[in-house]
């Protein structure tokens, strides 16, 4: 893991609200939401090798759970968000259990099915969710953008920290082995059932956390959170930033969110542009664009700090 640059980024992130206010702060917060989703998704897809299209739906689970509980039972927002994460974890367990024997495309298809069913459920159960109108939700910290920003940043840092901890541990090794060869891992003593469920539960818990956070930042939850195109965004951000790097995926989200702002005038083309970007990345640079840029920057930096060799330049 690249320690120094990551720390540098963190410092930049902490100082961010000093220079950017209100509107850009809000954009950054949304970026943090997607960063949470992208990094947790890339844990599942890039490290464990399970491609799930239900991630956005898990975020919606977290969002709606928190929203409904806070509105109806008046519980504090923090508790709501936590319960949202738990609910999402529960659904993650369910999906993990259902797909235990599935691989690759069949698993992806099942998660796709689940995501759509859930979205239909949200739209249909008007009494509970007000359908496509969505629910209005109290804002955390009464809408204080600076506090919200630091909460989001804190959540992201915590998420990345926990996920990296897991990856560096023996669990991480088991998950990587499972990605390489699930049967081979099982025959060497890895309880693949347990760790598969583990991966689903952990990653969907973080998705639910992100969803809960989002709900109390935006103030509105709607079934649009669970749209497949939301999944497309998450995919695009993770792949762009580097599917096999959690930090990369998180950064990919932030970069692309920023890009979205610059594309404001062309907003309807956003996904088309991102889609093209991802296709390009997959075809020519499957490890992601950001990692490549990082390498380039590294190479240039090292060349500058070394004496110029005769003939180069």
């Amino acid at each position, binding site marked *: 893991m690249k320690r120094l640059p990551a720390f540098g980024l963190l410092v930049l992130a902490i100082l961010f609200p000093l220079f950017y206010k209100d509107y850009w702060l809000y954009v950054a917060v949304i970026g943090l939401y997607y960063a949470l989703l992208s990094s947790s998704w890339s844990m599942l*897809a890039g490290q464990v*090798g399970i*491609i799930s*299209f239900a991630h956005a739906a898990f975020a919606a689970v977290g969002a709606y759970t928190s929203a409904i509980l806070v509105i109806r039972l008046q519980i504090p927002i923090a508790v709501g968000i936590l319960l949202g994460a738990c609910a999402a974890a529960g659904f993650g367990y369910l999906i993990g259990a*259902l*797909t235990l*024997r*599935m*691989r*690759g*495309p*069949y698993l*992806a*298809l*099942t998660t*796709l*099915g*689940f995501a*759509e*069913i859930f979205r*239909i*459920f949200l*739209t*249909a*159960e008007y009494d509970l969710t007000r359908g496509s109108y969505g629910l209005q939700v109290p804002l955390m910290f009464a809408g204080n953008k600076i506090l919200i920003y630091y909460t989001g940043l804190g959540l992201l840092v915590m998420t990345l920290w926990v996920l990296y901890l897991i990856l560096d541990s023996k669990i991480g090794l088991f998950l990587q082995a499972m990605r*390489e060869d699930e*049967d081979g891992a099982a025959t060497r003593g890895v309880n693949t059932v347990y760790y598969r469920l583990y991966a689903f539960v952990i990653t969907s818990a973080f998705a639910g956390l992100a969803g809960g956070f989002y709900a109390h930042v935006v103030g509105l939850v709607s079934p649009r959170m669970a749209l*497949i*195109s939301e999944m*497309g965004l998450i*995919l*695009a951000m993770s*792949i762009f930033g580097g599917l096999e790097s959690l930090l990369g995926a998180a950064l990919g989200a932030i970069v692309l969110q920023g890009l979205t702002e610059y594309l404001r005038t062309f907003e*309807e*083309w*956003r*996904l*088309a542009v991102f*889609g*093209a970007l*991802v*296709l390009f990345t*997959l*075809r020519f640079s*499957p490890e992601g664009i950001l990692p490549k840029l990082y390498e380039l920057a590294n190479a240039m930096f090292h060349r500058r700090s070394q004496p110029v060799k005769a003939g180069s330049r």
Partner: protein
Amino acid sequence: MVIGTLYALMALGLSLIFGVLKLVNFAHGESMMVGGYLYYFLATSFIVHLLGLPLVVALAATVPVLFFFGFILEQTFLRPAYNRQTARYDEYVILVTFTLGIFLQNLALPLFGPYNRQAPAIFKGRIRIGDLIIAGDRLTGAVVAFAVIVVLFIFLYRTYWGKGLRAVSQNPEAAASLGINVPRMRSMAFGIGISLTGIAGALLGQIFLVNPVMGVPFAVKAFVIVVLGGMGSIKGTIVGAFILAVVESFGSILLPDPTRALAYKDAYGLLLLIVTLMFRPQGLFGEKVRRA
């Protein structure tokens, strides 16, 4: 019956692509959408420019375009990964086809607008067969679909190329050692698959509506059919298509109908899909995958 034939055509492209290339085309719905728009534009412009030509020609014209489109797609995105024998091939194709679908859908949205368009029906009016009244557009849809399926069968079982495709779907290494150009077969299969799907999209477009998300509900049905019938089994796909058609027509009679049941209509297909994947992933006629 009528719907079944259409469904069969709709799902065959998916099945063929899986059979030969061993991948699930997550852009299936969007392929239909492309076919739908293609037909729409060809049909509406033909009317303006070349009067007197039957709309079937417009339909036929979509075929080479779709084939070419699919062929190029395979060459650009799928072939390189396949050649490099990346260990991540399975993951890669899921990501690529899914992204392709998202891309096409979100390209069509701003390009064509989210409005519905009515593609001109190939034959208007209704036909009466005994007690049944069948709308002209559906009938043409079924007839064309049937014709295409027949042509497909002839192609697969009587021509060299068709046999080559079947060989590759069963055993690529053996096929290669027999002198069959496997990479080209794969591109061909993808091209044919996209054509089949696109034609289905065009036919469905002239029955229902053409819009950027038209492919989604039909794609779900196609997935259900292919999983039910068995991935890669042509026979199974056709059987699955008719099963689904029958279930749907009976299902709508059985359900009591508050607004909620209507909203959940699409969910039933998805549920069926998940259940099948859980308990009998090889479907009715598919191959059971051996491990280790």
